[in-house]
């Protein structure tokens, strides 16, 4: 499958390819110096482009089909992972995965949205759009984690909860609401990581926790820019403006107090280097867990509710 190259990535990739090309002749020709100069140049170019990304460009990065997904992080970070299936009521939603595994020395539960990488796997994963049984599976697993006193890590990456007929019949809204309610008072540490797309209630449905971390090029908001454009501008053409207006980037959300910490991505974005992204995340998760584990369950819950209650701006 041809790799997707975003418009703003093109100059970087072209230069990188040129360097690759030159390396082939490095042994015969004395071009080592030239290669070094070009490497410096590509680093500079990458820095310039990536430090000036628009919000819409970040949305595109967050949706990049090569970006690491929940199962990728699980396999990179956890040992002895056991995936668990089903909500015990209706079925097993493939758009949300979860299971226990070891993160360093701790057994943790990881639950997250799961997208597919090609058409076939995307159909299997319903493009990462959960049905109610997905949220109910997540809740069942989180309640198991609470029962056995294991910390919970959730990974958000969804274009939204599935807006289908059956989803409505089975109570999409109730399933999400129930998760928000229950997650707010589970007596174990919960770390939420927005790894890609955080679209509205479908993302938040597994997103209530003590610490909310977000990858540098992920997005998180009340609605996707395209849908926002179609509703407020009555046209699909204002997605860039909508992305700007929604202030949905990691640095925006840190400023708004919605997230606690930004996870830096490897140069060029997480899709360019899975291993580095996984390593950074693991290191940060271990750090965060160490702090959270020391807090008593009652205090943890109290602080969690307080944290979300502070969110919002008003005047009186």
């Amino acid at each position: 499958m041809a790799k997707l190259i975003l418009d703003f990535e093109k100059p970087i990739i072209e230069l990188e390819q040129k360097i690759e090309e030159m390396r082939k002749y490095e042994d015969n020709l004395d071009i080592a110096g030239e290669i070094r100069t070009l490497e410096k140049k590509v680093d500079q170019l990458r820095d310039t482009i990536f430090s000036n990304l628009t919000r819409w460009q970040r949305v595109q990065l967050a949706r990049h089909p090569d970006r690491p997904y929940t199962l990728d992080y699980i396999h990179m970070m956890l040992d002895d992972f056991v995936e668990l299936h089903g909500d015990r009521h209706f079925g097993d939603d493939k758009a949300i995965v979860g299971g226990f595994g070891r993160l360093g020395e701790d057994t943790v539960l990881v639950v997250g949205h799961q997208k597919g990488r090609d058409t076939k796997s995307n159909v299997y994963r319903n493009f990462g759009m959960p049905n109610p049984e997905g949220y109910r599976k997540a809740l069942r697993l989180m309640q198991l984690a609470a029962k056995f006193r294991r910390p919970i890590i959730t990974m958000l990456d969804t274009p939204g909860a599935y807006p289908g007929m059956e989803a409505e019949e089975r109570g999409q809204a109730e399933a999400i609401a129930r998760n928000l309610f229950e997650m707010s008072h589970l007596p174990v540490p919960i770390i939420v990581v927005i790894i890609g797309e955080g679209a509205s209630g479908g993302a938040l449905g597994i997103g209530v926790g003590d610490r909310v971390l977000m990858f540098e090029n992920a997005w998180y908001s009340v609605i996707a820019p395209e849908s926002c454009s179609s509703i407020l501008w009555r046209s699909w053409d204002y997605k860039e403006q909508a992305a700007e207006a929604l202030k949905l980037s990691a640095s925006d959300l840190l400023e708004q107090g919605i997230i606690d910490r930004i996870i830096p991505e490897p140069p060029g974005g997480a899709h360019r280097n899975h291993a580095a992204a996984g390593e950074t995340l693991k290191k940060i998760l271990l750090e965060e867990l160490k702090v959270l584990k020391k807090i008593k369950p009652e205090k943890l819950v109290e602080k969690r509710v307080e944290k979300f209650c502070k969110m919002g701006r008003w005047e009186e």
Partner: protein
Amino acid sequence: MSWFRRSKENISTAGQKKDIPDGQWTKCEGCSDIIHRKQLEQNYFTCLKCGHHFRIGSREYFELLLDPKTFKEMDAKMRSVDPLNFVDTKRYSDRIKDTIKKTGLYDAVRTGTGEINGIPIVIVCMDFAFIGGSMGSVVGEKIARAIDRALKKKLPLIIISASGGARMMEAAYSLMQLAKTSAKLAQLSDAGIPYISVMTDPTTGGVTASYAMLGDIHIAEQGSLIGFAGPRVIKQTIGRDLPKGFQRAEFLQEKGFIDIVVHRKDLKETITKVLRLLTD
């Protein structure tokens, strides 16, 4: 050139659809019958002929449900700010100002304490007329404080929902109100205080995906549209028309999400009965 020119400004044809019609006579949206305003009022703003429920606001609900002179409003003047300087086709700050002027309301929810057939309660009611009953920071904060009051005074909570969902112009702040209100409701539930959720037409999006669906008892007005995604979006997803009655109160009851579907005229008695059974 047309023969007749409209010379007076006070004749209008393309007026905005109003929640409660201003004139003396109005046409029922359900059966097209012509009803007199007095008649409509006496019949709880429902059509005598077909039972269609007109959309009404917090003022009407408080009058309908609460014993006279018992309502004490809380945080009446809390207002939305424009934390993100949001501009679409219009500035959000202007939108707020204009809507306040147009509706006489300060935001999409009003909260307070009152009595219902002598039972003291905390009551919350949304106004669909205020930016589609959308939930932003003010709605979330007012509801959180109402729940705090219910917790402190050990009073049952009633929330009457009417909303298109979270307010886009406050973006992530709006989204977080789902978590905030749900977390407060968990505290209320842990304290063993009853919460009755009343869903009216329409209750969709983030409001359904948070407090509306978290009641101990779910009551819905007959015929109300209740759902997560709106019918237009679902139609787009599945590429065909939706069956008649889909996402209506009766349908949701059939699917197991609503305890009681009521006609508006029975709302007060139904709530009273439930409260007496749960709190006596």
